[in-house]
């Protein structure tokens, strides 16, 4: 059964910015669903609409059968949100932040204590809970954010870039927490990311979005299969070389050709490479380099969007932004 269905969900910001453009998603109950896309793809905007923080410009969505516009209050009661920004209060203790959230949902105090204790244990923050959040490290902060979305035991949890700005180790720890939560509570989790391996490792199904539009949906395995094999990219010394090569290799269809590079989809690069190198050599052409990309979500993304994910850049930007915010605060 689909717990979330969007119908032509659209958000146009001031200045005619189409952040989300006629998005249609179906998310199955009890799964982990990944929303993958580069910076500015519209992931956060989609999450904000589904969590009723902002209203869509047009279209709508149903969350657990409830309309996000007409029944927004009912939607809010059953969802949890972990926003992209750090939203816990630095001037409060960890535990105070969590108790405050629990009160928003009218969780009885005893029950709230019990939930909070369990969650603090889960993310190993029992000792830090009595300290002011302003003294937390970035990783501790992110872990607190994660459980702040869970104190009221939501049916659906939205995680907007839960591992943004974390080092590799902490990130995989975070993945374990997320998996653990999904398995023990059997809730639906929607998470956004621009880390491909994150979505690959966590999600049962995913959608790639770019510039507000849905590019493709499927399980990680399906999407990798769709790519239909390895992606071989050849760079040449000159356009002349390339055109000649394309003639020689007329039995291969390039998927993408730019000035001096050509990209092919091949079943198995190990088998095909000799068949390509040999005839070129015979004609005196030596490409500058061959690059083989094994099917991964990276290649899926490249295949569908036409360019690689600007991963490092994104991370840097957000990290800078978080640091600026923290400085501003002081």
């Amino acid at each position, binding site marked *: 059964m689909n717990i979330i269905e969007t119908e032509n969900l659209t958000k146009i910001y001031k200045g005619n910015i189409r952040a989300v453009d006629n998005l249609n998603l179906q998310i199955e109950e009890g799964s982990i669903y990944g929303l993958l896309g580069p910076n500015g793809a519209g992931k956060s905007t989609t999450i*904000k609409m589904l*969590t*009723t*923080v*902002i209203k869509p410009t047009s279209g709508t969505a149903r969350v657990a059968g409830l309309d996000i516009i007409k029944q927004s*209050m009912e939607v*809010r*009661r059953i*969802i949890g*949100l972990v*926003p*992209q*920004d*750090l*939203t816990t*209060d630095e*001037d*409060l203790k960890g535990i*105070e932040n969590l*108790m*405050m*959230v629990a*009160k*928003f*949902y*009218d969780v009885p105090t005893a029950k709230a204590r019990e939930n909070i204790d369990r969650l603090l244990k889960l993310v190993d923050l029992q000792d830090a809970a009595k300290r*002011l959040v302003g003294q937390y490290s970035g990783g501790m902060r992110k872990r607190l954010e994660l459980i*702040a979305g869970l104190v009221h035991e939501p049916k659906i949890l939205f995680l907007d870039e839960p591992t943004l700005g974390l080092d590799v180790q902490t990130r995989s720890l975070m993945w374990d927490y997320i998996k653990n939560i999904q398995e023990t509570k059997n809730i639906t989790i929607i998470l956004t990311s621009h880390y491909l391996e994150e979505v690959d490792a966590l999600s049962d199904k995913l959608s790639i979005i770019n510039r507000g539009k849905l590019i493709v949906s499927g399980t990680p395995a399906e999407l990798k299969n769709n790519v239909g094999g390895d992606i071989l990219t050849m760079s040449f010394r000159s356009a002349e070389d390339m055109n000649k090569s394309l003639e020689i290799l007329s039995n291969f269809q390039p998927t993408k050709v730019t000035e001096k590079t050509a990209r092919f989809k091949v079943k198995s690069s190990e088998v095909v490479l000799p068949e390509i190198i040999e005839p070129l050599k015979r004609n005196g052409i030596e490409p500058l380099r061959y690059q083989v990309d094994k099917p991964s979500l990276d290649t899926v993304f490249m295949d569908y969007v036409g360019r690689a994910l600007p991963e490092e850049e994104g991370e840097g930007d957000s990290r800078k932004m978080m640091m600026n*915010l923290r400085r*501003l*605060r002081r």
Partner: protein
Amino acid sequence: MSGLLPLTSREIKKWYRNPTFFIVGLLQPFFWIALFGSAFDITRGFGAAGRLILQGAPNYITFIIGGVATTTALFTGMFSGMNIIWDRRLGTLGRFLSSPIHRSSIVFSKIISATIRILVQILILFIAALLIPNGLEIASSFSAFDVILIIVTVTLVSTLFSSIFSVIAIRVTRQETIMGIVNLVNLPLMFASFALFPKQLMAPWLADIAQYNPVSWSATIMRTVIINGSLNASQLSTVLNNFIALFIVTVVVIVITYVLSESEIRQ
């Protein structure tokens, strides 16, 4: 209103845990009473006629303390708006907006906490005014009822100004906007009122404007009971008229704040 209690307790904790805010907030009344009390002292040079200008007050500080209290409310009230913008900028508002709390409780938590801050500041202000030489002299017939009237008046006027600044912040994303409005509005509100000067000393056109200024209403109520203690019929009607005006305007502004914050607050 669900969410009001946890959000207000958050604001209060943030306030008393922030040493700068706390200490500055407490020192401010001392500065104000010392500065205003001597800088604007209009009775100097008037001799015995001074008492007449001051509507019977024994000294200038006794005359202006109600006005300074009101101005304190005016200047501290703007924090409620600033704090809403902070929450928006940091993304905290997003978490609030995704939870099943009344939207207005976000705004009213700021208004209530600002009012509590102002009440504490004004308490300090009165203590300061009593401590300094040639300071506040309260009428001997001053009663518990007068204390309650002053507290209610301060609460009303604080709520009024905090609400106005909060309403502005409902859609504004920049701190500078609030600061600009504060700069534009606060000084005129303070000076085009009976907070610091009696009506007789003002230009007639200014006095005409001042009588519609809530700052005047609040200052006049407090001044009348502080100077006179138990009131005669005409003093009572002055207090009553000003109080009714203040009460109605505050209630109207609260209703507007409620309606706008329920429907219009954005991330």
